[in-house]
């Protein structure tokens, strides 16, 4: 058949039905519904969220879960290892309430004496197993000694879940108290960054022109100052405390947020829907509240989510170099710092706060990633 001369009767007119091309087949979802859906489907982010909620709850109720206060000192019960009912008989759990270490000596007897000396001369409460007999030469014999301090101190009925520190303070109470302080500082710093950053960036971006120029020059200078330097200087001047650490963290911390908000506002304020609103006579505050804010709230949330772990890190960092809270107050940073002092002999003092701060940081980062995926329209398939 000649392709160029098809008979007309082969063609059937397409019957015009009601216009279906423009119809949306699925119910429409708002931006927030969409974001929520993506977020709840993100398993790692949900796990991180649950974990964080659990940690926040524990930081509230944890210190009250046993009878010890965070600053109850009692030297008679100093440096007790971690012991948890139920777990105390499982030798690898780390909650057995015993110290186990290898000792070396010229003979087995020599090594045993070293162990006994190390463990308060409580010979009756030390189990010794010989690892290698040795031949009398220098440090050839090795024994493994297990010391039961709870029995030695007649405290069989007592349980310090995370052990006690060098002054006999309950580590469980202090760890959760420290978590609470670290979280308070982080949330407070994030909230202040959010307030100042959004207000500054919003005004700068929205009004533009000379106001914007002036405000941006200030930011450009501030951003040139390394935040480490600012934080250290502020902490040296202010006395360490929850409030002063927060102030030190926020004094330059808000610039990142301000820059980002300004950029977004600049991008949005010239778009048609804003122009339309303006043409219809909406006042500035209404345009900001109804049209701009909802559109930038996503990135504000994401940015705040990443501010929190940064604040936790810097608080711990300050405490770690000795510029943080003063004992008996505790934060995760001060606990880690104290833990380092006796790392060799009492590693449990470092391990619990170190694990906790790592888990909190990881969880916040995963949560932030999840939120970014949820709020970034580019990521949606």
């Amino acid at each position: 058949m000649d392709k160029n001369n098809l008979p007309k009767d082969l063609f059937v007119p397409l019957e015009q039905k009601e216009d279906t091309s423009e119809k949306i087949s699925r119910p429409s979802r708002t931006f927030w519904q969409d974001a929520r859906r993506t977020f709840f489907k993100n398993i790692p982010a949900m796990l991180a969220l649950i974990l964080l909620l659990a940690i926040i709850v524990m930081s509230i109720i944890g210190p009250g879960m046993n009878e010890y206060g965070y600053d109850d000192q009692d030297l008679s019960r100093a440096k007790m290892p971690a012991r948890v009912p139920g777990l105390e008989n499982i030798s690898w759990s780390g909650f057995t309430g015993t110290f186990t270490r290898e000792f070396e000596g010229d003979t087995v007897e020599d090594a045993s004496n070293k162990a006994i000396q190390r463990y308060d001369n409580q010979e009756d409460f030390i189990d010794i197993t010989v690892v290698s007999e040795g031949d009398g030469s220098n440090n050839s014999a090795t024994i493994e000694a297990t010391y039961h301090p709870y029995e030695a101190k007649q405290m069989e009925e007592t349980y310090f879940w995370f052990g006690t520190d060098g002054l006999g303070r309950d580590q469980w109470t202090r760890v959760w108290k420290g978590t609470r302080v670290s979280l308070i500082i982080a949330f407070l710093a994030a909230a202040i960054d959010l307030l100042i950053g959004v207000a500054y960036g919003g005004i700068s971006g929205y009004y533009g022109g000379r106001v914007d120029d002036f405000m941006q020059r200030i930011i450009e200078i501030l951003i040139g100052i390394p935040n480490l330097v600012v934080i250290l200087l502020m902490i040296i001047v202010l006395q360490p405390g929850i409030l002063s650490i927060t102030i030190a963290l926020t004094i330059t911390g808000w610039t990142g947020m301000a820059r980002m908000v300004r950029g977004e506002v600049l991008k949005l304020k010239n778009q048609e829907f804003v122009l339309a609103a303006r043409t219809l006579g909406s006042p500035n505050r209404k345009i900001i509240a109804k049209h701009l804010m909802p559109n930038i709230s996503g990135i504000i949330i994401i940015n705040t989510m990443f501010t929190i772990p940064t604040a936790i890190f810097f608080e711990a960092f300050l405490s770690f170099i000795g510029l943080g809270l003063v004992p008996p107050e505790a934060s995760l940073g001060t606990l880690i710092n104290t833990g380092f002092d006796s790392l060799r002999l009492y590693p449990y003092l470092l391990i619990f706060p170190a694990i906790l701060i790592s888990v909190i940081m990881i969880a916040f980062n995963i949560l932030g990633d999840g939120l970014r995926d949820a709020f970034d329209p580019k990521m949606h398939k």
Partner: protein
Amino acid sequence: MTRYLLKRVGYMVITLFIIASVSFFLMKMLPGSPLSAENKLSEEQQAIVLEKYGLNDPVPVQYVKYMAGLVQGDLGTSYQFDSTPVTKIISDRIGPSAILGAQSLIFGLIFGILLGLVAAIFHNGFLDFTSTIVAVLGTSIPSFVFAGLLQYGLAVQLGWFPVALWDGGFEYTVLPTIALMIFPMATAARFTRTEMLEVLGSDFITTARAKGVSGAGVVFKHGLRNALIPLVTIIGPMAVGLMTGTLVIEQIFAIPGIGEQFVKSIMVNDYPTIMGTTIFYSVLFVAIILVIDLLYGIIDPRIRVTGGDK
């Protein structure tokens, strides 16, 4: 370009001036002087000490003198180490810090790029998953926690490395370098992975493949080259992060670097050293950011630096 450079250098100078002034007046507000530990001195002796440090002048005069010294590269004299200029303290201690910083930056970048590359090539595979986990852990766990674990595990328990000692040999730098490089490594891995995925999905890669370029050729010649250009931008923040890191890592591993001295000076209120080190860090920071920005413009011709603001 020249105008841009001038503008940037201008901002640098203003920033540094503000840092120097603010830190000067903050230090003046604080209690403590070279005398505070030595109450036994007679009044005349006190006067001599004050005279020696120029503390008898009114504060504005001290300020002008200090700033004039700064311009000439004089950071004053330490309170803690009698009559030692701060510049000497810094130059004595810059070696270990520089070695550590350079090593961690280089190794961190190399391993990070490799990790990110592997993750991008085996996208959504097991290696990608592993590399993502390493990246999340590396960016999340604070360097001092990581240093503690390394020190306890590899040095105290296994005895493979010295616990906390420094005499310049390579084995003394291994643990601190690992602890410091984790963060740059994780950041670089994340960044390389994202960039690489984006580049590998672009049209010119499809063209190259269609023309018959081998798999390795596509990845290294066409992909990696383009993916690495934006990496230059994050080296600045990385270097700054390393400076923060050295403060704690040098403490943990007893390394006689600037960070360790800085923390000590803060503890004993040695104000000239605190100020000097602060200014030193700031100059370094500002210079790194400037160099990186200029470098970026040179490496990537698409970025045209113009004098305009917009």
